[in-house]
């Protein structure tokens, strides 16, 4: 009866509808859209504050986006827990360095994968702040609010992503 909880994959349409319904409740109960990337700015500010002290709060960006724990930060922590729970139930909670597709193209070296992931992360974090949102904040929550800025951002995410993925795997690899 609870087999569906231990299944590794659900239909993407069921998952998508579930996320859509979840967004009704985040609006209704918390008055907020699902989003993730602002949390990484707040966390970066909190880390810089630990290192450099209170003067960090003078940065114009941190005056607008305070380095503090908020609703969205808890949402991001929840994602870690929820994904771990689902992975545990379906026997997919496995520590792994190298994704299959990466290994097929670039080999199993941990150093190379970690370095490229770091580089990708820097661009991703920088771009998310530049665009003021990510795949969830713009890509799901903003597009469903019919925001022009969010549709332009989401198309940009995939245009840039598809172009560079082709370059990496069909030209470089």
């Amino acid at each position, binding site marked *: 009866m609870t087999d569906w909880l231990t299944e590794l994959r659900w239909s993407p349409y069921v998952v998508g509808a579930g996320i859509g319904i979840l967004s009704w409740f985040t609006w209704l109960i918390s008055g907020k859209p699902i989003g993730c990337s602002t949390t990484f700015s707040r966390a970066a500010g909190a880390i810089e504050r630990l290192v450099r002290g209170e003067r960090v709060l003078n940065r114009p960006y941190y005056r607008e986006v305070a380095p503090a724990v908020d*609703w969205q930060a808890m949402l991001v922590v929840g994602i870690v827990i929820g994904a*771990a729970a689902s992975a545990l139930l379906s026997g997919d909670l496995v520590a792994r360095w190298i994704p299959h597709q990466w290994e097929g193209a670039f080999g199993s070296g941990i150093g190379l994968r970690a370095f490229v992931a770091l580089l990708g992360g820097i*661009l991703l*974090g920088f771009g998310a702040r530049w665009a003021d949102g990510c795949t969830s904040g713009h890509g799901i929550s903003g597009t469903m609010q019919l925001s*022009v800025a969010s549709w332009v*951002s989401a198309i940009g995410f995939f245009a*840039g992503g598809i172009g*560079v993925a082709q370059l990496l795997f069909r030209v470089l690899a």
Partner: protein
Amino acid sequence: MKSKRADLAWGLLFGVVFGFLLHKGGATSYDVILGQLLLTDFTVLKIMLSAVVVGAVGIHLLQRAGRVRLSPKGGSWGKNAVGGLIFGVGFAVLGYCPGTIAGAIGNGRLDALVGGLPGILLGSWLFAVVYPRVRNGLLRKGAFPKGTLPELLRLPRWATIGLLTVLLAGLLYLVERAEL
């Protein structure tokens, strides 16, 4: 007003459900995300577009009933097209996005935890450093005169949602027919 603590607890609970769904959908996997960007596996698009359609109907009904006040973000070409493309490059190089990387970490993916996470923090910090230099210039270049699709298309809100639903469903139908 609800208490701050209750607000945070709801955030955590919503996150747990979101993370659970992301993993069940395969979106916490590098291979699934790269499959989408290489156009060999359309799982990510199927998840996102069905979330957008189902979500849109519900939140706009809630808004009509006066239960929520939506806050669609404004923007500009300089902010959203440029930022979106930079994000896209990072998306392909890293193979996760800010939400799915949290899920990938919960999933045990060490490239996400040791490489991607410090990278995103560093990139977000770098933006905070350059922000004073771009906030009144590049970020405002080519501001969108209309904030929402109904305004842009001069269509009633529900006609826009109907049109969007038909277009997105049509796109997914083509994807299914091509067995992607």
